């Protein structure tokens, strides 16, 4: 096992794309219509609020969504909730419980959650026309809406289909105070008295993580991490989190290696709101043992070009999550025309259409079998990758997300004026 904590040579987002740059991918007509919808908002302002500025899919989406809304003439500010390590330990427990894991928290955890919310409420201005709160951590900020005439939207990025009742019953009254809730899949919802909309998350095709790379750069990244470009590479990109089942991926790799030669790359990092990352990383290192063909890469959050290169160099991309919000790494791989083998959880089946854009699996054995199948049938793997590219281009790009927000804002304004 080769375990690396690397400092990439690159800095955050080497090139910031502008709206017009997306025309080459989605067409000029889409960009033109975004401007038309944005114009109808008449300069109304938006606040986006979440709990981490780096690491994880939500921060990545906001990092690109906010400047594009701004460029469209919709002034948008992004604020990050402040909290100590104890607070993020609590919100991580909430997060796991909302995904259906057992919750053995204490009553004072709920008090701490409300206390930190109240502290944040004192410094955050919440006067914008649209306040979009992402995920459960800042959800209780909605208490500040009293006396304001603005619109409040809760964007839930996680799968709420089987939440732990103790945590959900605590959070639900806050959610019910919003004007609308946004979910990544219909199955993620709970019966709520407010309108619930389907909002697929999206990836930025022009970000460092997804844009085209020079073959020399990819080669260089592989060399730097000691990965052999001439042998099959299986890759899972995700932070070191038990819900991503990195140990299960290692088990599947071991089953494949009985018959076929390949290497395994597990690459990811931690998010500032995930204190469990270090513990899980140690578990993964232990499971990998001394196998030189398992590369565990604990990368800093700004390693976008390296992640991009690893995905592009992969023979197969795996996402063997046990639970998942949406799993944007799947769309990232499909955009790069890579065949994907992924668990049928959360939003993954929206991206991986079984036997069309990849293969869905339910277990370690299933993953191992399908890896062997695709390694043995490269033509089928190539076709899945090509289909996947088209599927992502039509459904899961950043510009689609921008449009949904613009249209939602217009819809809320119209509803408010009784139209």
């Amino acid at each position, binding site marked *: 096992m080769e375990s690396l904590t690397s400092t990439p040579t690159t800095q955050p987002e080497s090139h910031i794309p502008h709206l017009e740059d997306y025309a080459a991918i989605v*067409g000029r007509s889409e960009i033109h219509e975004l401007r038309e*919808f944005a114009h109808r908002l008449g300069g109304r302002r938006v606040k986006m609020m979440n709990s981490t500025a780096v690491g994880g899919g939500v921060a990545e989406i906001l990092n690109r969504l906010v400047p594009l809304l701004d460029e469209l003439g919709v002034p948008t500010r992004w604020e990050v909730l402040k909290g100590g390590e104890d607070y993020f330990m609590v919100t991580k427990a909430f997060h796991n419980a909302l995904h259906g894991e057992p919750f053995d928290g204490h009553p004072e955890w709920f008090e701490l959650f409300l206390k930190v919310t109240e502290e944040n409420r004192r410094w955050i201005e919440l006067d914008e026309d649209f306040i979009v709160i992402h995920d459960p951590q800042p959800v209780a900020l909605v208490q500040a809406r009293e006396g304001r005439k603005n619109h409040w939207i809760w964007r839930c990025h996680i799968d709420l289909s089987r939440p732990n009742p103790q945590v959900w019953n605590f959070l639900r009254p806050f959610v019910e105070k919003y004007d609308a809730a946004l979910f990544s899949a219909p199955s993620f919802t709970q019966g709520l008295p407010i309108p619930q*909309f*389907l909002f697929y998350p999206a990836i930025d095709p022009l970000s460092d993580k997804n844009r085209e790379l020079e073959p020399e750069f990819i080669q260089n990244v592989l060399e730097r991490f000691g990965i052999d470009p001439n042998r099959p590479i299986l890759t899972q990109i995700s932070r070191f989190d038990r819900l991503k089942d990195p140990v299960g991926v290692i088990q599947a790799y071991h089953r494949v290696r009985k018959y076929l030669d390949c290497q395994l790359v597990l690459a990811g990092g931690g998010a500032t709101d995930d204190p469990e990352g270090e513990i899980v990383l140690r578990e993964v290192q232990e499971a990998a043992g001394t196998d030189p063909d398992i590369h565990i890469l604990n990368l800093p959050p700004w390693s976008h070009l390296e992640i991009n290169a690893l995905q592009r160099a992969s023979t197969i991309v795996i996402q063997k999550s046990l639970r998942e919000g949406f799993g944007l790494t799947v769309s990232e791989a499909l955009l790069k025309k890579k065949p994907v083998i992924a668990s049928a959880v959360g939003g993954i089946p929206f991206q991986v*259409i079984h036997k*069309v854009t990849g293969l869905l699996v339910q277990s370690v054995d299933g993953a191992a079998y399908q890896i062997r199948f695709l390694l043995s049938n490269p033509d089928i793997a190539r076709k899945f990758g090509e289909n996947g590219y088209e599927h992502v281009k039509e459904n899961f790009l950043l510009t689609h997300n921008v449009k949904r927000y613009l249209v939602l804002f217009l819809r809320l304004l119209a509803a408010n004026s009784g139209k």
Partner: protein
Amino acid sequence: MKQAKRPFEFVAATYLTQICPERAWTLAELAQNLTKVSDACIFNHTFQSLESHHYTSFSNDFAQWVMAACNEGALAEELAAIDLRDFLSIEELRKILSSTVENYLRKNPQVADRPAFEPFHFCEAVEVVVPLEARAFTLAELAEGIKQLSLHTLHYHFISSRLRLLLRTNDFSHWIEDSLELPDLAQRLNRIDFYMNTLDGVRKEILQVLNQWNH
């Protein structure tokens, strides 16, 4: 070039998907919900979702679910064969969808309450339309405008238009026949098969037909 009596008025249109509380775990529940969900819901799973099905074997969400989650191939084929172009109202379409499922369950009562692998989630399409300044008085201007439409707007003008017009036609054909008085061209455009094509493909065919007519 022939000038129209009144211009074709372009819009920007798109849809939000609102998640409804209704779910179906069995074919019996699907049949029951088909009679009571909103028109916007029936629209969403048939007209609106048409585009997303060019990867799959079946042309609407109901057929796709019946096959993928209930493994009832014959019913899936029957539902997929319902041609949206035959309907001018959602109510008519609802009746056919509903009777298709009910008739199948009458013949195959043993499958009515068998749980599906995953539930069907009913969703509504919420249409948002804003008028644009763009107008066309000639076929060349129409073609130029069509090039500028997003795929959602093309869907609005070419596919969902028949529910608005209450005619078996699309916005482009309707304007060409009504304002340019070119019924043959209108009919040629209306014959373009949106079932067997992506929206990008539909756009290319429309432009090809207009281009051939102009030359």
